């Protein structure tokens, strides 16, 4: 029986670099935003891709950046779909949850685009109240 030079732990203490985390590269916020802006910027995007993109984006645990929404709204314009544009605005407001200051910020950032494309906000159309 050999003399053991190390005591045995139930959970061997490993140095930081050898911890059992995934070695996948974590995407930065900027990369995430850029990827989505590119997705919606496709010139010949079709209706299904817009729906799929929006539904996926709303499924994430975040409120999309104004630049992503801008790209999505312009995609709606290319598809001649005003209803979806308004719906996107409603969805991000709902997505903000209890943080009531996010939506006004988004509208403020998107105002030039909204005016340019002629998209009315749900508030303008009186659809934010029952």
């Amino acid at each position, binding site marked *: 029986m050999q003399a053991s030079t190390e005591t045995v732990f139930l959970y061997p203490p490993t140095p930081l670099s050898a911890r059992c985390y995934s070695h996948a590269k974590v995407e930065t916020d900027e990369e995430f935003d850029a990827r989505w802006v590119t997705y919606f910027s496709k010139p010949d995007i079709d209706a299904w891709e*817009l*729906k799929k993109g*929006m*539904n996926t984006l*709303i*499924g994430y645990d975040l409120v999309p950046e104004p630049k992503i929404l801008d790209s999505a709204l312009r995609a709606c*314009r290319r598809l*001649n*779909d*005003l*209803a*979806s544009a*308004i*719906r*996107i605005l*409603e*969805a991000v*407001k*709902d997505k903000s949850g209890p943080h009531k200051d996010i939506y006004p910020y988004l509208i403020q950032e998107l105002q030039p685009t909204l005016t340019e*494309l*002629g*998209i*009315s906000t*749900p508030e*303008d*159309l*009186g*659809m*934010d*109240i*029952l």
Partner: protein
Amino acid sequence: MLTSRALLRGLKSGFWRPLSSTSSVQAAHGKDMSPDVLDPSVPQYNNRLDTPLSDVPFVRNLNSEQRQLKEKEKGPWTKLTKEEKIALYRLTHELTYPEMRRGSSEWKTVLGGVFIFLGFSGMLVWWQRIFVFGEVPHTLSDEWVEKQTQRMIDMRVNPVGGFAYHWDYVKKQWK
């Protein structure tokens, strides 16, 4: 008694049916009364907070003025009036987000129903108390209980921490 119970059951089913989902679905999809609305093998419209853009628009069979509006949508949106924008939204979506989030007053009905039936049960219990149960045993009468209590004090029931402990034998009263 039995006939009134049958009446209650009939009332209950007639009462709850309008609140069930199937009739409201049929009412809402009055525009699309075609069989494929209730056909799950075909993409369905649905109102979901987590799915802002549904697979198909709410109204698919457009009449001529709706088709004209759709044509106008292809032009600059700055030329659309507010009513037209709202109309376009409602063609594609049945409910707005606030409408989806709106609760119902169903809980009041449920709570009211619960109280009604609890009250009815209470009535039954009361009736039973009056007409079914006989007299209470004589050993629970005040007179008997007095004599019983005096006897328990005299024989010093539980003198350490119980019954007779609470009786003051000097002052002849409860502590």
